[in-house]
């Protein structure tokens, strides 16, 4: 009876919450109060696929749900992106019958990396995708090794791990383990032999701390690595990006399936690869996946096309406090051969908590913007001076950089007399301040 009432109340709260526009955490929170082990009491589908990691979780989950749904599977997933135990509980119970059976072929769970242990102490995933470990929200997450330990505590022995072989910090999870599926990219035309970044989290072996050698870097510490001492090295992959052309905008999977890219970014490529890997493991045909992913445009609102007067542009939602997220966005802008202006806004560091920390600006490879494709750079927001201080070390000529503390003034400047394409790079916490001044297309 307790189970019945808990599910009923959760469903009612979710229904009312949707009507009044409330978030998806609260119903689950109430359900967990009423019945703390409710997630243990429900009957789950055969496939329980969990996804965690620093970046790409939400996009990857959306892609997996899209592919599986297109191929006739029913999927229960946290599409609102509430990825801590409360949001997961809301999602699971909303998709359950009142007797407690989840009505789906596949339960797909995006989980916050730091608190995955809590969620997965109740639910044992059949498959667990770990995308990457980056410096992210240092104000909350400390550093990648600290997050590694938090994720390690959430892994069950019986779960099959699906790991990014190209990330040496993630691959440690598969060290000495049998049931692991590896995905990764072969040496790519976009690779760098020498790392181009202001720091390298792959400089030392995560196991023995001896120096690591990279034969190729896809980006940052993601690439083909081998420890110079203990034998730890990139694992061979079962699911592989075999070629990419970021200029033309396509990638090739397992030497067979070519996918045209709506977003020409390595970030996008790894999300597609992870989604492809999961879909293949669930039994979907490779060509069918490629068809579903062809020119796929994410619906989660992270990449938004806009118009400003006569000018066109793209907002690339990036995460403040996450340098690799910024690096990816910067690479997209730099690839714009007809020339582009870039607007970077740092006004509120986070939408969830207060901090005035801008250390992370110094981890971003803004030096990449010292590129002939980038014409002007407009820096804006309350932290414009911290941005300007950082940019003063990039070697970019001062006359190319404009500073506006006020975001509307920065937009007005962009809307007068210039024609270049605009890339706006900012975070969830600040993007509405920009979008309210332009026309979304």
């Amino acid at each position, binding site marked *: 009876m307790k189970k019945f009432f808990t599910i009923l109340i959760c469903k009612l709260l979710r229904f009312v919450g949707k009507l009044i526009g409330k978030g998806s955490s609260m119903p689950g929170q109430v359900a967990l109060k009423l019945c703390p082990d409710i997630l243990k009491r429900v009957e789950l589908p055969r496939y329980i696929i969990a996804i965690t990691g620093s970046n790409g979780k939400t996009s990857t989950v959306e892609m997996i749900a899209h592919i599986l749904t297109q191929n006739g599977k029913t999927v229960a997933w946290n599409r609102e992106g509430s990825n801590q135990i409360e949001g997961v509980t809301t999602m699971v119970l909303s998709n359950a019958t009142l007797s407690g059976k989840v009505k789906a072929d596949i339960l797909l769970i995006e989980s916050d990396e730091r608190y995955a242990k809590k969620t997965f102490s109740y639910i044992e995933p059949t498959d667990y995708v770990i995308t990457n470990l980056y410096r992210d929200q240092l104000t909350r997450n400390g550093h990648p090794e600290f997050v590694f330990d938090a994720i390690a505590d959430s892994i069950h022995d019986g779960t099959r791990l699906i790991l990014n072989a190209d990330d040496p910090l993630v691959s440690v999870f598969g060290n000495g383990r049998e049931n692991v599926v590896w995905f990764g990219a072969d040496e790519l035309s976009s690779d760098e032999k020498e790392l181009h970044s202001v720091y390298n989290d792959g400089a030392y072996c995560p196991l023995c701390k001896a120096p690591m050698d990279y034969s190729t870097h896809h980006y940052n510490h993601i690439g083909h690595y081998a420890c110079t001492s203990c034998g730890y090295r990139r694992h061979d992959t079962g699911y592989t990006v075999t070629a990419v052309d970021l200029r033309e905008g396509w990638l090739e999977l397992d030497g067979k399936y070519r996918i045209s890219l709506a977003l020409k970014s390595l970030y996008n490529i790894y999300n597609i690869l992870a989604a492809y890997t999961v879909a293949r493991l669930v039994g979907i045909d490779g060509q069918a996946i490629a068809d579903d992913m062809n020119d796929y445009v994410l619906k989660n609102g992270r990449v938004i096309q806009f118009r400003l007067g006569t000018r066109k542009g793209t907002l690339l939602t990036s995460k403040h406090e996450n340098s690799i997220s910024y690096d990816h966005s910067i690479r997209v802008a730099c690839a714009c051969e007809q020339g582009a202006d870039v607007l970077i806004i740092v006004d509120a560091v986070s939408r969830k908590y207060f901090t005035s*920390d801008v250390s992370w600006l*110094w981890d971003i490879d803004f030096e990449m913007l010292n590129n002939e494709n980038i014409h002007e750079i407009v820096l804006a927001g309350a932290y414009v001076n911290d941005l300007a201080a950082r940019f003063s070390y990039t070697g970019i000529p001062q006359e190319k950089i404009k500073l506006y503390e006020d975001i509307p003034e920065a937009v007005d400047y962009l809307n007068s007399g210039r024609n270049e394409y605009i890339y706006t790079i900012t975070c969830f916490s600040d993007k509405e301040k920009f979008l309210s001044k332009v026309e979304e297309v």
Partner: protein
Amino acid sequence: MKLLHLYHDIMNLYGDYANVLAVQRILENSGEEVTVERLSLGDDATLSDYDFIFIGSGTERNQKVVLEDFKKYREQLAGYIASDKPLLMTGNSFEMLGNTITDGDGTAFDGLKLYDFTVTEQRGKRSTADVIASCDFLDKPLVGFINKSSMITGVRNPLCTVTFGIGNNDAGQTEGIADRHFYGTHITGPVLQKNPHFLLYIAGLILGRKPADDCLLYEQKGYDNTLKKLSERIK
């Protein structure tokens, strides 16, 4: 002038490296020729060759690896500090100079024992905070961010007193360590860019004269903004 960035590729969280660039720039703007050397594990430096030394913060595991290597510098480092040359250590790097560091599993690691303090790391927990802290040798407070797993007890000569944020341990408001011109603080990242008055102070020590102060406009405005935002939080 010669600057040393020690353990640059392993003790390098949060943009720590930028502190060395800040010192280099202000010395060059003050008319000096500057060389920066970046050394790491297994290298052998002669510390007395340098006019300024910096070490940044690392993960707890990396700090233990560095600690083993760093012990070879114990006598040299004591001599360097005694010679009144400036040394800046941010984050958990300065923890290495104490008695012991006990990790989250309870294993104790011997420090260099140059100072009589003790470090205890907390397993699975971090202490983080935006910080305002006053230093008796600076006319304005320091601002920044602390992100650590440790509690430090027994520091007799702290760097500063925290008026907002967290100190060396939960019991008190003192933060970091200072001895002659050695400054250790858990305020991490580009501390000197964020605190241009601290940069000017350190540059003055290196030069033995007043440094050029006309290249810090953005840093100054950034500092004012952060101090204002943090002060508003106190109210």
